[in-house]
């Protein structure tokens, strides 16, 4: 499974602290006006935020969307509850930004355009079969409803627990399980129709 690293800093002051405590410490520093701490928060979480946005919105405007997420996070820091998990809170902002973006675009036609914009130059050492499968996965995700796609991406691709997803999306745990079940079924059906043997 692909694991997205979220710690990038060599000068890591938090060897003995949990990620969550480290995040909360950085948040406190940010609230005192320390933008360097926000830079650390950015480096810790940007890859996952970027990945989620890419799966949900495609490559177009990706940098702008990432920027929007972190600016909203900065502005919303005073409202952040210390008892909450920073990453869950950040992913919720990410999901809100993705929702806003999807609403702002003409969905069906736009998604086709986004698929067409994907060029082989985005992959390093392109391999035709691999590219074909990647395209299938991307098309499969696009074929799902936004709610199903979100749960599938967060759980199966980003490996976020069902409970945390329930917190992020503010829905019951049972709804997460249900959406995941239907999303997987739809994705499996799509891939089988495309000739993939699972």
């Amino acid at each position, binding site marked *: *499974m*692909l694991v997205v690293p979220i710690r990038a800093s060599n000068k890591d002051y938090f060897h003995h602290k949990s990620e969550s405590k480290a995040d909360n410490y950085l948040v406190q520093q*940010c*609230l*005192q*006006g320390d*933008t360097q701490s*926000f*830079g650390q928060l*950015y*480096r810790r979480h*940007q*890859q996952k935020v*970027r*990945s989620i946005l*890419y*799966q949900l919105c495609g*490559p177009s405007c*990706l*940098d702008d969307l*990432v*920027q929007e997420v*972190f*600016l909203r996070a*900065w*502005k919303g*820091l*005073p409202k952040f509850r210390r008892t909450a998990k920073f990453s869950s809170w950040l992913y919720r902002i990410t999901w809100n930004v993705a929702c806003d973006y999807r609403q702002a675009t003409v969905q069906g036609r736009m998604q086709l355009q986004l698929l067409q914009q*994907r060029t082989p130059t*985005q*992959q*390093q050492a392109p391999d035709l079969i*691999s590219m074909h*499968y*990647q*395209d*299938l*996965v*991307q098309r499969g995700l696009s074929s799902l409803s936004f709610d199903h796609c979100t749960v*599938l991406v967060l*759980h*199966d*691709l980003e*490996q976020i*627990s*069902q409970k945390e997803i329930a917190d992020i999306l503010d829905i019951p745990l049972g709804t997460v399980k249900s959406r995941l079940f239907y999303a*997987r079924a739809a*994705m*499996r059906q799509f*891939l089988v129709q495309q000739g*993939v043997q*699972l």
Partner: protein
Amino acid sequence: MTKFSDRDSNLVNFLCQHRPQVPPAAPDLEQQILQKVKVYRLPTTSKRARLWLVPSVAAAGLALAIVGYRVFIPARPTAAELASVEKFMESNWQSTVSENPEEEVFLLTY
């Protein structure tokens, strides 16, 4: 994470193996974000400080009300004070109204 069935496990493995690669960020994206962040100053503690004012103002108001009540409302008179007031009123009443009605007529005609 939940335990997968074999079917789910195969699907998830396939998705993870063939997930589209995320394009790299612009090299200066972090700097752009930090520049914008520096422009926007956080309202760090002012709102929270104002929130803390609410209970203290309420407590101060309550204390003032109690002190004001004690100061401005007169204390109840004692039994001795009441008795002296009553005596005073009786003596004044007797001097203003006479028991002899003729005296009153005399006073009125002159």
